[in-house]
C-alpha cells in the first residue's frame, strides 16, 4: 500500500515535458515535489498564477501570494499573474494539459464526486467542476477504500457528482487504473506487495484485468 507521498510520486511519472499542469488540494499538491528537474513544466494555481514555485522561506512569506489551497507559495522565473476570469478562461479553453485532483468516489464510466456529502459535509466545488468539465487529461489521486473499508471505485457514484465521464486515470494507494472509454477500470499496475486479488476485492466497479499486472516502479 502506498502512502500519500508515494501516490504523489507515482503520479509525477505521468508528467510530460512542456506541460501546463493544475494540481488540486491535498495529495495532488505533493506531486510537485516529485517532478524531475529535467522536465520543463508550469504549475497553474487557479486563483491567478502560472509558475508556482516552492514554499517560501520564513522571511519571504507573502500574504498576497497563495495557492488555491490557501498555502503561501513563491513564483518561479517566467511566472505571470492574472484574474480568476482569465484563469478559468485558460482552464475552460483547454490550455492546461494535465489536471490532478482528489476524489471521494469515481465511477467506472469516469464520473467523479468530490465536493459534498448531503446533510453532512459541504466543501463546495471550488474550481473542480470547471477543471473536470474542461480538461482532456485528468488523473485522480485517492484512497481505494473509505475508512470503513468500502470501495470508492464504483459502478455509479453515490455522492453528488462533480463531473461526468471525465477521469482518465486513477492512482490509489493500491493500484494504477485507467478508465476505459467504454467504461470499466483497467488495472495497469499494483502497489508493491498488493495482490490482484486484493484489488479485485476492493473495487466495486467493473475491473478489467488483461495479462500479467506489473508492480509499480518508482525509479525513473
Amino acid at each position, binding site marked *: 500500500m502506498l502512502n500519500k507521498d508515494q501516490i504523489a510520486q507515482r503520479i509525477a511519472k505521468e508528467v510530460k515535458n512542456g506541460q501546463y499542469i493544475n494540481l488540486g488540494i491535498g495529495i495532488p499538491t505533493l506531486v510537485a515535489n516529485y517532478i524531475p528537474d529535467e522536465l520543463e513544466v508550469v504549475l497553474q494555481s487557479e486563483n491567478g498564477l502560472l509558475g508556482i514555485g516552492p514554499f517560501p522561506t520564513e522571511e519571504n512569506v*507573502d500574504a498576497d501570494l497563495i495557492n488555491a489551497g490557501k498555502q503561501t507559495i513563491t513564483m518561479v522565473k517566467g511566472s505571470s499573474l492574472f484574474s*480568476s476570469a482569465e484563469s478559468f478562461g485558460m482552464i475552460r479553453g483547454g490550455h492546461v494539459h494535465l489536471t490532478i485532483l482528489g476524489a471521494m468516489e469515481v465511477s467506472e464510466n469516469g464520473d467523479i464526486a468530490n465536493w459534498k456529502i448531503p446533510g453532512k459535509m459541504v*466543501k463546495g466545488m*471550488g474550481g473542480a467542476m470547471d477543471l473536470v468539465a474542461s480538461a482532456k487529461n485528468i488523473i485522480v489521486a485517492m484512497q481505494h477504500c473509505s475508512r470503513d473499508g468500502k470501495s470508492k471505485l464504483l459502478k455509479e457514484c453515490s455522492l453528488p*457528482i462533480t463531473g461526468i465521464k471525465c477521469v482518465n486515470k486513477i492512482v490509489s494507494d493500491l493500484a494504477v487504473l485507467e478508465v476505459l472509454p467504454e467504461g470499466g477500470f483497467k488495472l495497469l499496475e499494483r502497489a508493491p506487495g498488493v495482490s490482484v486479488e486484493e484489488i479485485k476485492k476492493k473495487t466495486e466497479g467493473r475491473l478489467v484485468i488483461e495479462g500479467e499486472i506489473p508492480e509499480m516502479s518508482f525509479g525513473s
Partner: protein
Amino acid sequence: MINKTVKDADEAIRDITSNSVLMLGGFGLSGIPENCITALLKKDISELTCISNNAGVDDFGIGLMLKKRMVKKMISSYVGENAEFERQLLSGELEVELIPQGTLAERVRAGGAGIPAFFTPAGVGTEVADGKEIREFDGKLYLMERCLKADFSIIKAWKGDTAGNLIFKGTARNFNPMMAAAGKITIAEVEELVPAGELDPNTIHTPGIYVQRIFQGKDYEKRIEQKTVRK
C-alpha cells in the same frame, strides 16, 4: 481627470442598506476589503446577499458578517475552511447558491461586460445543471449561465489613483477586477492611493471607469490561512 476619492471606509459604505446585493473581492483571506468589512460590521444592517468566492474564516473576513447574521444569502464556490458557514448552510439558516468557481468568475465578468448569458461546460450532469438550459455545441454539452451584478462591489487593490485606476498584487487580484466592473457602485480600498498620473497607464489592471469611490485603507492585517514554509 474625475476624482473618486472618499475619506474612509465609513464614508465609502455610507449608503449600503439592508437587503442590498454586495460583491466582495478576495480568495480565501487574500485580497479581501478588510476596512470595508470592518465598517459594515459596525452598521445595523442585515438580509444582505453576498457574492464572494468564499466567506473568509470563522473569525475573519465575511465570516464575521455571517456570525453577526447580517447575511441572508451567499453566492459562492467554496465553503471549506469556514465551520460557521458550513453549519449555517447545513442547518438551512443561510440561503446558499454554490456555483463552480470559473462559472462564478465568468458570471461576474459577464455582469460587468454587458453579456446577459453565456454557455459553459462546468456543471453539466451535476446538480448545478438543475433548472438550467442545456445545449450542445460541436458535440459537447454546455449550460447556459446568467450574468451577476451587484448594488455595491467592494474590492481591495494594492495601489490606486484618485481617478480610480487600480493595480493588484500577486494572487490578491483574483475576483477583484471583474467585481469592480459588475457593481452599480464600486468601492475600492487600496493600500496606497496616489494622484492621477502616477501609475503607468500600461500596467493598470482595473481602469478607473469602473470605480465610483476609492480610499486608502489602514491597519491591514492580511491574515494568512495556511502559512507554509520551506524546510
